Structures are given as C-alpha cells and as structure tokens.
C-alpha cells in the first residue's frame, strides 16, 4: 500500500474547502428564505477576479478579498432582480450561473499562465510539529481555517445572535416577520451579498491555492455540489462540515485507490464521492427547509 493516511487526511481538508466555503454562504442565503442557484457563476467569477487581483498586486490575500467583492457584486444583481423586481428565484439563479460562466470567460481572456504566487502554510511552533495531528490539521493555508471559523461563526450567528434569529424568522415566514416590523428585504439582500462573497472566496481558493491557475471552467461544477450539500445537511452548519469533508475525502480517496490499482472498476470509484455524500447525508438528515424558501416577498402584500 502506498496510500499514506496522514497525507490523505491533509489533502481532504484542502479538497473540501472550496465546497465548504460556497456552501456556508448558500446556507445563510437559504435560511433567509432565498434560493440562489447562481453559486457556480459567482464562484467562477470569484476565481477569475481573485486570480487577476492576486497577480496584479502580487499578493494572494488581496486576491481573496477581490474575489469576495466580485462574488458579492454579482450576487447583488441577483438581489436586485429577485428582491425588488420580484423575478422568479430559480430562473434568475440559473441565469446568474450562465452569466457568471460567460463573464468569467470574458474577464479571463489572456489571464492564463503559470502562477508563482505562494499562499503560505500555517507553521506554528510546537502545534504544527505534533506528530500525525500536526500534519493533518495544522499545516494548511489560512483559508482552510477561515472556512472553519466561518462555519462556527455562522452557527453562533444563526442560533445565538438577535440578528440571526431575525434572519431565520424572515426565512421561516416572511409575512409574519414583516408584520413584526422587521425589514425582510434588507435582511435578504444582506444574506445574498454574504452568500456571494463566500462563493467568490471559494472560487478564488481554487484558482489561487488548489490548482492554482486560471482556466475557463475551472470550478467544474463545485457550485452545484455546494448547493446539494446545503440541502442534504438540512441547513445545519455543523452537518455542512460533515458533508463537505465527506465529499472531498471520498474524492481524494478514490484518486488514491485508482493509483493503487485497486481491483474495483474505476467508474464506480469516480461516482463514489457523489454516492457516499448523498447516502450519508440522507441517513443523518433530520431538518426541514425554511418555510419561505424560494418565495417572493413584497412589503405591500
């Protein structure tokens, strides 16, 4: 056996991070009662903008910030259309994905090539050097930890903070929340912007850390996986980590098993991440969708 479980677990965290980032953003959006299917489009726009900004400033962290802004800017288009012009959220979200793919391709003309930007890895004295655990958990780039902090922060926000409770009220029953005097639209626009920023950051993680380079179609469907994981994690931030890490883990594992020359047909290995994620998350599934998910709201009604 050439598979090194320590390296495998370490690779798992890197492979899962873009999905986790995009999914945590979408989770907040959906808890506010909005279904934004444009994650893939915002991700890939973030990927190209992050790459360009990162290389322009020769600092990957400016790239991450630029990508988050780009994702948020694109999501603002969605927010304006669905919250003020009351367009259908499913159709607008799908449109946003297609628009984002085309826009990214346009922006990215001529931005290809090798990348010399290095995103530093965490290197704490003592902690990073702990055998096994140090290599698995404490030798990653900072964005891996940002994604985990975002999940923890989202959990705290949604369950402990007043603003989070209002956001959930808006998502569960926007008419009731409106009657109580909460600003449904404002809450939703903010949630959509947060979702866009997370998706943009997720995209730039692919183009600045994981691959790292810009090529058309680089996100290759990760946004859709993120959407699926939100549903299967039944809108619970902690389950989201389980879903994303499971998907990333089986993805990395199946590549390793293939290289190992395992006597399982490679077709089955290739579908394994999708199957495993669906199976496990369906089994642990307990929650239900926010009550007003995907419904349009106008204050006059």
């Amino acid at each position, binding site marked *: 056996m050439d598979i*090194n479980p320590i390296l495998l677990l370490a690779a798992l965290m890197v492979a899962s991070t873009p999905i986790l980032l995009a999914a945590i953003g979408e989770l907040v959006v959906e808890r506010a009662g909005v279904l934004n299917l444009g994650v893939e489009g915002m991700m890939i726009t973030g990927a190209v903008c992050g790459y360009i900004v990162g290389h322009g400033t020769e600092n990957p962290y400016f790239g991450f910030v630029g990508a988050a802004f780009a994702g948020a800017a694109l999501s603002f288009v969605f927010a304006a259309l669905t919250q003020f012009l009351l367009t259908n959220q499913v159709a607008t979200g799908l449109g946003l994905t297609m628009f984002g793919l085309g826009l990214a391709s346009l922006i990215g003309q001529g931005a*290809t090539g090798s990348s010399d930007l290095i995103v530093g890895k965490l290197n704490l004295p003592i902690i990073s050097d702990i055998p096994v655990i140090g290599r698995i958990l404490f030798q990653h780039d900072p964005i891996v930890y940002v994604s985990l902090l975002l999940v923890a922060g989202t959990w705290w926000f949604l369950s402990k903070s007043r603003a989070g409770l209002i956001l959930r009220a808006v998502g569960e029953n926007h008419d009731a929340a409106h009657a109580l005097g909460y600003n449904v639209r404002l809450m939703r626009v903010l949630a959509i912007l947060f979702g866009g920023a997370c998706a943009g950051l997720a995209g730039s993680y692919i183009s600045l850390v994981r691959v790292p380079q810009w*090529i058309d179609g680089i996100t290759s469907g990760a946004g859709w996986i993120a959407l699926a994981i939100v549903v299967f994690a039944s809108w619970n931030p902690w389950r989201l980590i389980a879903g994303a890490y499971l998907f990333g883990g089986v993805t990395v594992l199946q590549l390793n098993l293939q290289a*190992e*020359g395992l006597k399982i047909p490679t077709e089955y290995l*290739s579908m394994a991440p999708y199957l495993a994620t669906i199976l496990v998350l369906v089994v642990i599934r307990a929650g239900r969708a926010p009550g007003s998910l995907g419904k349009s709201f106008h204050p006059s009604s």
Partner: protein
Amino acid sequence: MKRRTLLATGAGAAMAAALGLPARAQDKTKVGFIYVGPINDGGWTQHHHHSALEMVEHFGDAVELVYQESVPEGPDAERAITQMARGGADIIFTTSFGFMDPTVNVAANFPDVKFEHATGYKQADNVSVYSARFYEGRAIQGTLAGRMTKTNKIGYIASVPIPEVIRGINSAYLHAKKVNPDVEFKIIWIFEWLNPAKEADAAKALIEQGCDVVLQHTDSTAPHQAAKEAGNVYTFGQAADMAEYGPMPRISSIIDNWAPYYIERVQAVIDGTWTSVNTWDGIAPGMVGIGEISDAVPADVKAEAEALRDAIAAGEYHPFTGPINKQDGTPWLAEGEIANDGDLAGMFFFVEGVEGDIPS
C-alpha cells in the same frame, strides 16, 4: 413610421443579411473549427487554434476562420457543427475524439461541405480523419521517465479510455521498463480531457504515493503546478510545449503541430482537389514534435532520448516492436515483429506489466 412598415423594413433587412452571407462566402474559403476546450487551455485546443491561425496567416485574405470553443462532446456537438455548416463553412475541422459520430451524422446532411475529424476512425466521402502518432513521443517520454525516476514509481494521469490514450500508456510503459526494469506505473483516469481541479488532485495523489515522474494525457498545466509545488517531481508538456514550467518540473514535451496539415487540406479545398483521406503522421513529417529536453536531465540520458527520437524519425525503430505480450500474458507481437496500424488504431488492452483494468 407605422409599425407595419417598420416590421416590413426590418424583415427585409434581415432577409438581405441572410442572403448576403453566402454571396460573400463564395469569394473566400470559409474554414470552421470545433474545439472541445477553450482556446487558451494551454494545451490541446490552444495548439489546434495556433495551427489554425498559422493556416490563416499562410492564406491571408483567401480564407475566413470561424470557430467555436468549449463544445461538449455528445449531442450538443451535432448542433454546433450543423450551425457552422449552415453558416456557409466550406471545410470544418472537428478536433476531439468525441466529435466522431456527430461529425459523420452532420456530414451526411451536407454533402458539399468537407469535414475533417481529428483522432477518430470513421471516414465518409466528405469526412477525412487525421491524427498524430503520439505514441512515438510517448516512447521518448517513457525512456526519460524510466531514467529519471528515483522511486521507480511513475504516475500517469489518463483522460478518456480510448485507443489513443491506451497506446500512449503502453508505449511509455514499454520504454520506461526497457531502461529501468523496476518501474511501476500508477494510472488515474479522470474521464475528461480538461478539468484542472481534477488534474491537480490526481497529480497530488500520485505525488503523495511516491511518484516522482508524472505523465499526463490531459490538456491543462495544472499537474505541472502541483509538481512545481512538490519540488522534486518531473513532468512533460502535453500537446503544447508548456515551456514556462521548464527546466523543472517540465523536462520535455510532446508538441502537436497541425499547421502543415491544415494548410495542405485547405489548399485542397481551394483547388477543388479535396478527397477523403486517412492521415496518421508521426515525428518524421513533423506532426509530432518533441520539445527541448531541459538541463534538469543528465547529458547522457538526453543523448539517449534524442537518439531514440532520431531513430523513430528515420524509420529505423518502431515503438511497438516485439516481443510484446498482452497484460494477461498472451503473446501479441513475436520477436522482431512490428505492430500493424490496424492493431494500433483499435488498441484496447494493456501490455504485460501494466497493472489495473481499462475502464470500459
């Protein structure tokens, strides 16, 4: 202006535009290209496009280039090709294996349009097929890989299970084994021609399992980036030179040079002498180029690889020369026997020593 008059004028203008197009197309030869990836993928599609631009430069105003990027293999390809044929293209090059059936289907509906399909095997009266003997280049890569590896583990990122890819694996393996009997190949199939994220993950998985040479049959430069990060891993440019990753990790490359072929075929259309042909050229006519072997390779190994290249180009050596057994041990080629083109074109088995099964 009344609305009806406005509509009539608009319709008239549209009709004029529609009629005008074919009229203009007659003086120029319209050459179409259908690409599987974006023209800036850094590999396969980029090189087809460069060759197409070289062809346009050669003819100047006599030709007009139209192309469509990132056309998915499958039913949608048929729509894209049909659209191009309707748009007045005189000759259409479809540059991926998966465009084979769509090309043949569309060609049946447009008998006056010439079609050229890359890397396939289905010909028709107005469909030519062309490909390059990439396995000749793989023989050189295998030799270099076998000499350069210290761990004796060579990684191979395979794309789609078709004979072209399998030939490449077999050729690389045979020649790595020849110079280093201890080598072992680790193969990962990603089932796509271009998916940088997957290619990067696959390269990382191979490197983590101890491979210090990674060959790829996929189109992006992502594996090079992963190798660069790892530090002591060697890679090869695929379809394009990928020289920006030299001298390390990229130590050589297979370069596809389609321009002479494109110029020849478009010239045939202009002259009216186009006929359906089956072209399969290698290193000798220049369709397969071997990129500069970098300084990271010791001089004697470089000389050995170059001698192999020259022997193949001179026709003195064929990469598939017996004795070669199939994976299950049954004999394929006897001592000194050279594989025939039919066997090579339909090759769907690994040679003895390669581990794992070919996905079906």
